[in-house]
């Protein structure tokens, strides 16, 4: 365990030093990350105003709170591993990673954590600006707030596991870009980032109930913005745990099979 902690400390240090080289990217990221919620809030607030101030239980400041919360949760749980794996496999970058005495997933987790730590001031600023600009009204109960952090951690673990498994597809396929793009769109809709899930048509809501995506974003976001009933919280945690276990199993299996397929080219 102490060994793993040392590994993480070193990885974090390198990743932060690496990221500091790209400060201009921070500004770009700030605009990109703020624009999505700003557009969603504007669209749905307009709908609410057109329909007499409220739609499906949300008024403009409720929408603002919900979309700011999804932005925060998405920032905390988002990964970009599946964009990188195809290059890793193609250019033999995996070979040195495999020679290390720790599982390569740890380096990726550390890199993501480092990036998120660096972006914390940026996301804080964006949150504050959006909050003031759209008069967001957060109404969670203290109990709901207390469960937010564990839910967020589980959401990160779940999303990281699933997206790392998705990334492993690069062992079998050379063109993964289209799959990745489809995945991103599906997550955008079904995780609750474009609209609260209760706004989806009924058949799609049934589909989302059986998929892991809402537990990655919508669930923690609702805990933060509106709060949820005790029963909904319990269901949420259970679903997160179940999907996480399933995901870990899938990851182990795919990783073993993928490694057998991997033959280094160059590198």
């Amino acid at each position, binding site marked *: 365990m102490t060994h793993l902690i040392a590994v993480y400390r070193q990885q974090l240090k390198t990743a932060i030093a690496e990221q500091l080289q790209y400060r*201009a*990217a921070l*500004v*770009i990221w700030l*605009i*990109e990350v703020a*624009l999505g919620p*700003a*557009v969603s809030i*504007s*669209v*749905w607030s*307009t*709908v609410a105003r*057109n*329909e007499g101030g409220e*739609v*499906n239980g949300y008024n403009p400041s409720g929408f603002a709170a919900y979309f700011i919360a999804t932005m925060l949760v998405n920032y905390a749980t988002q990964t970009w591993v599946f964009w990188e794996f195809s290059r890793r496999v193609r250019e033999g970058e995996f070979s040195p990673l495999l020679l290390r005495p720790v599982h390569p997933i740890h380096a990726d987790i550390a890199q993501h954590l480092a990036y998120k730590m660096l972006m914390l001031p940026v996301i804080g600023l964006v949150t504050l600006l959006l909050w003031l*600009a*759209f008069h967001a009204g957060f109404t969670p109960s203290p109990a709901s707030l207390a469960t937010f952090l564990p839910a967020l951690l589980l959401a990160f673990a779940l999303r990281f596991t699933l997206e790392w498994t998705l990334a492993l597809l690069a062992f079998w396929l050379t*063109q993964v*870009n*289209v799959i990745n*793009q*489809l995945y991103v*769109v599906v997550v*955008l*809709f079904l995780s609750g980032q*474009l*609209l609260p899930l209760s*706004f*989806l*048509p009924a058949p799609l809501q049934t589909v989302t109930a059986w998929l892991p995506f809402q537990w990655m974003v919508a669930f923690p976001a609702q805990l933060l913005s509106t709060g949820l009933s005790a029963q909904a919280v319990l269901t949420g945690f259970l679903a997160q745990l179940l999907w996480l276990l399933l995901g870990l199993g899938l990851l182990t299996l795919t990783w073993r099979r993928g490694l057998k397929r991997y033959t280094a080219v160059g590198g």
Partner: protein
Amino acid sequence: MRTYLRLLWTFFRVSILGELAYRASFWLQIVESLIDLGTALAFISVVFSYTRALNGWSADELLTLIGVYFLIGGTINMIILPGMNRLIEQVRQGTLDYVLTRPEDAQLLVSIQQIDMWKLLDVLLGIALLVGAMLWHGSLPGPLQLLAFALTLLAGAVIIYSFVLFLATLSFWYVRMENILVIFESMYEAGRWPVDIYPSWLRAVLTFVVPVAFAVTVPAEALTARLTWLVLAATLLLAALALLASRLFWRFAIRYYSGASS
């Protein structure tokens, strides 16, 4: 003028020849464009299941707007951005010298030097959407509306071109300008919706800082008969001024440019 068109055609042909070597990218572009379109349509259909009109824009009118969004976005990504990205690269590497020594106008050459022809698909999708929206609406726009649409579309493209040229020209002084163009690209996404749904500060940004409003909302307004003569005149005037200003700035920058190579 004929020389310009001939040059454009030559560059386009060269790009086709270059791209035909990678036919798989054609299919990838189709899938990418369709995913983009599907997302936009799905989102709109959900929004309009909760309201009949978004700030007065009905579903078919919003479809018109999306059509303009794809049409202009495709044009930007096909001609304007690739050329400007290459210009920034050329300034950094000093290879702009070769362009400057050619016997044609340098601004013209850098503007059409790189064409990403697969983005033509977005342009075609945009036109298909416009036709679809018109059929759905059930009536053709009058000749005056069509004329206003053509004029504002051209003006919007000119304003965006001038704006991006201005940003790219800044690379004569600041080396890392390609990031600025990325910011422009992500701001363009906000043009999927009529700018009047945004709060006033964001509307101001989208009108005067990044002129997305002129490129997408105004032509869509022209086609859906909500454009006033005043806005039309102002848009055309602004386009002329923007073109002139970016031209003067380019000339000024060229005189400043001293080459980075050798």
